Structure formats: structure tokens, C-alpha cells
């Protein structure tokens, strides 16, 4: 078996590029490792090569091919996928130039029996994160919301949907930033609930002694959340808990009806000619789940 490996031989003049090296059919090369994109040197036609029982170990990605292939005489195609040499006989028959062998693992001039080339495995292509998902969350003052979630990148999530606060229907849209793809998150959301009658809910909460108030006949509000939180999971399922500050704004209706018999005595009359606008700022929290489907 030929073991003539002359690693110290200059393969071609230093001012000559590999493609200038005049490779012909006898030129042999080791293609680049697709995972690293490193280019192998190209051996000149008359160089001595290691052949036959050269052994490759590792989990693949070493490409060995004759120079007569489509890349002969030129640079290795670093964009091509690594081609595993599956046939052991074919693998053994592929010559390897000494200069192409990684230092420290190739055949030494002393023992020179086997060339052992360890090649790193090509990294598998990362799987694309699902982009489109369904989200459900419950909180205060958001109520129960079902949304469509879109994750164009792993660090951002847009959502928009509708739901109920137990009084009326509403909608909400928002943006969540996840700088690490999962874990800490920051959200900004805006939502609005239509006017609804709160008296029924208030009677349930307060009890039978409450006979309703005109103020609660029409209650609606818009709100804006600024939340920090934690998002767990990243690929298909994401569970999150968010909390922060909510600014809530709405109009107070039927104030005249509410005050007509409440507290105004004697000769003093109070009339509200224009519905007041109420604003509140307070803490808020919500829990939710996102299931990415596509």
C-alpha cells in the first residue's frame, strides 16, 4: 500500500491560487467541511498522495472525491451539502493529500500506517420556529381574550384578538418583546371594551341588597397595559405570566340620573351637562398560553 506522504512538499508556488495550480484529472482533493466552510488546498498533478487504506472516522461530513468531478481544478464548493461516503470500499479508495490532513491527526512520518482524519459533524440546519399561533389569556382588566399570535422572529410576538370582561365584548392588540426568545418579556397592549350593563354582575358580587345604579347601566373603557413578565417554553407551547401597570380610560354615563336623588338637598341642584371622563392607573396581571400551529 502506498504510504508516500510528503507533507513538507510545497504543493504549488505560493503566488499561485488553487485554481491556478493546473489541476488535472490526477489531482485529488478533500472538499471542505461543510460545517466549517474551510477550503482545502489543492494538490498539484505530480504530487504524491496518500491512498488506499486512509481511514476516516467521525460521524460524517468528510467529502472525498476525484478531481474529475464538477469541482475539479477549482475551489471546493463550500455551499454544497456534505456528501457522506457511504461505501466503505469507495471510502478506502479515495486518496487524500497529506497537506489536506488536519495537523496532529494525520499520518506521521514515523509510524505512517494509517491516516486518521477526524471531521466534525455538520450542524443540522435549525428548524424554523412556528410563526402563527393561537393565544388565550385571562387577567384584569383584560378579561378573557382569545388572540391570533404571530412570531416573525423568536424575540417578538404580535397578537390581536377579542374577548369579554364579563360585561361586554371587546378587542385587544399588542406587542411582546422577548430579548432571549423565552424568559423575560416586555409587553405593550391596547384594548377596548364596549359599553355594557354592570348591574347584573354587581348584584352577584355585592348581593341582594344592591338594587342597581344608573351609573352602571353603560360602562365601557379603553385600556393600555405596560407589562413585564416571564414566558416559558419557546417552540410550540408558551405559557406566560405578565404583570405591570394599566391605564384605563372611559366615560361616565347617566351621572345626572344617579345624582338626582342622592345627596342633593334643599335648594341646591347639581346638573352634569357633559359626561365626565374617568381615568385610572393601577396594577394589572394576566396569565396566558400560546399554541403555535404553523
Amino acid at each position, binding site marked *: 500500500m502506498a504510504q508516500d506522504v510528503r507533507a513538507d512538499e510545497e504543493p504549488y508556488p505560493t503566488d499561485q491560487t488553487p485554481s491556478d495550480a493546473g489541476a488535472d484529472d490526477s489531482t485529488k482533493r478533500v472538499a471542505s467541511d461543510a460545517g466549517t466552510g474551510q477550503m482545502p488546498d489543492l494538490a498539484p498533478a505530480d504530487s504524491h498522495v496518500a491512498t488506499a487504506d486512509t481511514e476516516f472516522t467521525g460521524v460524517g461530513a468528510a467529502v472525498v472525491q476525484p478531481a474529475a468531478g464538477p469541482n475539479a481544478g477549482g475551489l471546493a464548493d463550500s455551499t454544497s451539502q456534505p456528501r457522506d461516503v457511504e461505501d466503505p470500499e469507495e471510502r478506502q479508495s479515495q486518496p487524500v493529500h497529506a497537506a489536506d490532513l488536519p495537523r496532529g491527526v494525520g499520518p506521521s512520518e514515523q509510524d505512517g500506517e494509517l491516516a486518521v482524519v477526524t471531521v466534525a459533524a455538520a450542524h443540522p440546519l435549525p428548524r424554523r420556529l412556528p410563526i402563527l399561533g393561537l393565544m388565550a389569556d385571562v387577567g*384584569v382588566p383584560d378579561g378573557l381574550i382569545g388572540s391570533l399570535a404571530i412570531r416573525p422572529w423568536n424575540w417578538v410576538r404580535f397578537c390581536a384578538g377579542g374577548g369579554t370582561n364579563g360585561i361586554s365584548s371587546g378587542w385587544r392588540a399588542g406587542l411582546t418583546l422577548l430579548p432571549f426568545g423565552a424568559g423575560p418579556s416586555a409587553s405593550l397592549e391596547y384594548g377596548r371594551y364596549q359599553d355594557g350593563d354592570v348591574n347584573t354582575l354587581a348584584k352577584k358580587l355585592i348581593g341582594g341588597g344592591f338594587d342597581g*345604579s344608573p351609573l352602571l347601566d353603560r360602562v365601557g373603557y379603553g385600556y393600555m397595559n405596560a407589562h413585564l413578565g416571564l414566558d416559558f417554553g419557546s417552540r410550540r407551547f408558551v405559557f406566560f405570566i405578565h404583570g405591570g401597570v394599566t391605564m384605563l380610560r372611559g366615560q361616565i354615563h347617566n351621572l345626572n340620573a344617579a345624582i338626582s336623588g342622592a345627596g342633593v338637598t334643599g335648594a*341646591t341642584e*347639581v346638573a352634569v*351637562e357633559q359626561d*365626565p371622563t*374617568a381615568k385610572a392607573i393601577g*396594577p394589572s396581571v394576566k396569565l396566558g398560553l400560546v399554541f403555535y400551529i404553523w
Partner: protein
Amino acid sequence: MTLRPFSTITALVALASGCSFSFDADLPEVEITQRGLTVPGVPQTTQASDVSVTSSFTLSSSDAAWAKDMNSDVFVHQVKIAAGGSLPNLDFIELARMTVAAPSIPGVATDIMDYERGAQAPSSSVIQISMSAPVDITAPWSADNTIFEIQIAGQLPGQDWTVDVTLNLSGEITYKF
């Protein structure tokens, strides 16, 4: 069961936001009317010229209800004096002046309006004065008792007479927890 309006709203908002720590409501237009304010009559024999009388009314936290809850930025935009009872008009009023004060803030009275009837003014049962700039009455309004004093001068009726005084206000109700 009767609920104080803004207590209800505050409780509702607190319920909605878990634990509200700030609530405010802008009230851009509130009318407070004191009906049947009695002005003492002046015997005709004493009226050699215009005479002046003063009358006042008090708005307390109990009788003005939630309107007294307005606790910030309370402004007067307009004052309206309407003839009450059987008075056909208020043409006899030549001058009118209104101030507001609070017993808890002694020595400080805020001028709300000054009125002087023009020579060619038409006959009317209502005197309406709009402020060129809103008058800030936040301090006296925030006191438990707010006293409005109205001084009227002219050829006044010999018998006691009444007027309805309406204040057009704006204000803000603020709670912080």
C-alpha cells in the same frame, strides 16, 4: 341601597384593576344652582339713590353632594342670576358682584364676577355673565363649607325677593390610594 356615584366608580375601577392607586375624573361642565336665594327688600322711602344689599348662600359637603368632591382645578366659567317668584325682570339691578370664601380660610375671598348694567341693555329676567378667563376657586371649594356672597345695587324692590343663582363650573375629581 344608594351608592355615592364616585365611590361606586372608584370601587368599580378598583375591582377592574385589582387595586387601583389613582383615579381621576374630568368634569368639563357642571351646573350648580341655588334656587330661591332671598334678597332683602329696601323700603322705598330710604332709596334716594341706588342702594346695595348683600345676600349669601353656603354649599356644604352635605348639601352639594358629590359636586363638592371635585377637589382639584375647580373653575367658574359662568354665573347666571335669574329672577325668581313674581319678578318680571331684573332691570333694576345696576351693579352686581359675587365673591366666594371659606370660613376655614379666613381673610381670603375670591372675586368671581362684577356686573354693571349698560345704558342700552335690553329688559331681561336673567343676568348672565361669562368670564373672560375661568376663575380658579379650588381652595375655597375644597373646604367643607363654601360661602358665595352676592352684592346687588340699584333701585331695589321694597319687598324681599328671590333669585336663582347658577354657577357653571368645571373641575376634576382625584383619588389616590
